[in-house]
């Protein structure tokens, strides 16, 4: 009995020695290449990468994107957890600030990167460590400036654009023809648009009741509604914050933009004041409104997919929002892929999002999942399906406009609190409880305190 123990003890000690020796040997000998191989996993020891993303596309990625990724990198196992949008930021923050975060990749919405960066949760994707793992042909300059800027904070690039989205104007050409109004072009101004609007409120089936309206968009009390107001303001040269980071929207341009947003209600369907993303979408898809200001990603479900829309592809037009005194309007909404700074599998994690945002990956992504690309090369190339043609063209216009007018939400670690304040005051104005000037003044005061 004791002999056995001794032998076992001997064996294990010897095994330990052997392990130690080989460990030293391995680290001393093949350091960079061996590390590189381990970082990407081996068939016997695959690397597991966990990602937290929006529930809306988590499953699509898990079932379609990951297998495609695994064709190029078979030893990286990717598990994606989907979280509803509203809780995604809080859950990401809760996880990232823990001692050992669960997630290696965080998919962050446009305004969240500063918050995550400030708590030290994100890895620098252009830094020395990541550069060693970046493919030679990746080409950072190929990205359009506006989407790439969404992942940048204080000069450091923390994220890459994975799903690019812009606010756009959707057009129901049939309703325009019926009203005898010329179809909109990218040069259309807000004044012209508002002049045409009354004519687009029409009775299409001749029963004496109005059943088609000019517009539907975000009006309801929610954080994304102020983006419409902001787009109008930006297109007229207004800005949310000035160079010092102080609120700069409490002026005539901002007030006029608010009035314009509310004026749209006059030409919107009954009850539009409580309409948001989903309702305006349904109104457009049922052919009830001539124009809709909404996110470009809904194009497929509004023009192509028979099961969700009553409109036909040739009935639907897409372009930038009407132009103000400075240029056309747009608004950026980019989903960024970021890598957790505390992750143990940083190389594998960066490989995943690097692949997805590379030229080949992006082309695959947009061809197969209909996701909007951010690279100039992808947008300039022939679209993978025909209906993406006008979408790509409109997208490029939107990117250019957004970059010129800095058309995006506040970038600051406390941006969400600021956005909620904007939503509250904007909603009070839309409900007619306060004047435009008052709403902007209260919002500016509160936001200044919050951003401090």
């Amino acid at each position: 009995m004791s002999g056995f123990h001794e032998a076992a003890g001997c064996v294990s000690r010897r095994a330990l020695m052997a392990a130690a020796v080989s460990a030293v040997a391995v680290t001393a000998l093949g350091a960079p290449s061996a590390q590189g191989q381990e970082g990407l996993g081996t068939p016997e020891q695959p690397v597991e990468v966990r990602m937290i993303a929006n529930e809306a596309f988590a499953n699509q990625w898990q079932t379609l994107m990951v297998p495609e990724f695994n064709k190029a990198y078979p030893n990286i196992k990717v598990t994606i957890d989907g979280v509803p949008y509203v809780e995604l930021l809080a859950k990401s923050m809760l996880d990232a600030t823990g001692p050992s975060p669960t997630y290696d990749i965080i998919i962050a919405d446009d305004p969240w990167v500063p918050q995550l960066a400030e708590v030290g949760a994100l890895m620098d994707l252009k830094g020395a460590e990541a550069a060693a793992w970046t493919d030679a042909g990746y080409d950072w300059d190929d990205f359009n400036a506006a989407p790439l800027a969404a992942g940048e904070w204080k000069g450091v690039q923390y994220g890459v654009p994975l799903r690019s989205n812009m606010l756009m104007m959707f057009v129901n050409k049939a309703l325009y023809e019926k009203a005898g109004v010329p179809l909109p072009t990218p040069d259309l101004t807000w004044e012209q648009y508002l002049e045409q609007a009354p004519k687009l409120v029409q009775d299409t089936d001749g029963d004496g009741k109005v059943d088609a309206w000019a517009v539907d968009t975000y009006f309801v009390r929610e954080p994304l509604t102020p983006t419409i107001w902001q787009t109008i303001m930006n297109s007229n040269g207004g800005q949310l914050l000035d160079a010092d980071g102080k609120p700069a929207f409490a002026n005539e341009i901002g007030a006029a933009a608010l009035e314009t947003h509310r004026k749209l209600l006059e030409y919107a369907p009954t009850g539009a004041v409580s309409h948001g993303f989903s309702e305006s979408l349904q109104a457009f898809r049922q052919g009830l409104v001539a124009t809709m200001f909404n996110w470009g990603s809904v194009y497929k479900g509004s023009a192509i997919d028979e099961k969700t829309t009553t409109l036909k592809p040739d009935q639907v037009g897409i372009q930038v929002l009407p132009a103000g005194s400075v240029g056309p309007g747009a608004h950026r909404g980019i989903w960024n892929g970021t890598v957790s700074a505390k992750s143990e599998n940083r190389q594998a994690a960066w490989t995943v999002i690097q692949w997805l945002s590379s030229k080949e990956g992006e082309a695959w992504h947009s061809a197969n999942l209909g996701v909007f690309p951010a690279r100039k090369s992808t947008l300039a190339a022939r679209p993978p399906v025909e209906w993406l043609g006008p979408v790509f063209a409109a997208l490029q216009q939107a990117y250019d406009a957004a970059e010129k007018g800095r058309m995006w939400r506040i970038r600051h670690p406390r941006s969400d609190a600021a956005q909620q304040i904007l939503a509250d005051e904007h909603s009070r104005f839309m409900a007619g409880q306060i004047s435009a000037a008052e709403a902007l003044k209260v919002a500016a005061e509160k936001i200044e305190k919050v951003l401090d």
Partner: protein
Amino acid sequence: MSTVTATGVRAARARAWTKLADVASRWAFMGPAAVILGAMLAYPIFYTIEISFSRFDLMTFGAVEWIGFENYAHVLDDYRFWSSMKVTLVYLVFALPLQIVLGFGIAFLINADWRGRGTVRALFIIPMVVAPVVAGGIWRMILDPLWGIMNWAIGLAGFGPLDWFGDPNLAMAAIVIIDTWRWTPFVVLIATAALLSLPRDIFEAAEIDGAGWWSMLWSITLPLLVPIIAATFVVRWLGAVKMFDIALAATYGGPGGATNVINLFIYEEAFRSLRFAESAAMAVIVLVLTMVLTGLFLLGTRKLEQRY
């Protein structure tokens, strides 16, 4: 002086032991509940109170420095907090009595002795089971000025379309309707059980004495039901104060904050604006108010219980 015998001592010890066992068995009933709740809630409540008095650091998700009542001052200074409290009060005043009265009334109706009684009772539970988000969504569809069946039906009756979500008063009415739709079945459920447990002999005796159903209701049924009505009211009141998902799904708290009940506001401050310290301060304020009001209710119901 009595002599202490051996048997006397043993008997005394035996009595003491049974007394201990008796106290232990009494406390054992309270035991599991107290242990589970104590273990699970002690730290969270302590944490909430702590961060409400401190500056909150997102990097560690913890309190950093003690700043006393500063968070509370911010909260009390914010017009949105007061507006939210007012909205919650209006909602409670309308929704609670409606649900209790309607619930007990319907329970009484469906309690009539007939074949389909069990099925109707079981079917009545369904609105409670529909997820709040789905309930809010369906009612949005039903009440929508453009697509809703409600306005279409009203139109058939000759009235104009009602802007359920654009008008602040109608939006509040919508919230009350949806909440009542969801929770009256709960009251019905409890009330049915209560009615079923009522001893039949009293009713039979009263019937033989020639009492009509109204007087039976007033002088027999209601007094017997007082403990249950009070308990249901307290449970419903505590649940109603916490309501936020219906408001979120149906009206988003709008228009302009007209249906922004306090828990929705706390949720927004915590999860959207990531202002956990202010949110904790509000939670503590709401807790204190709820405790005070619940205490008053309990005192009142105890008086009622003693009377009957």
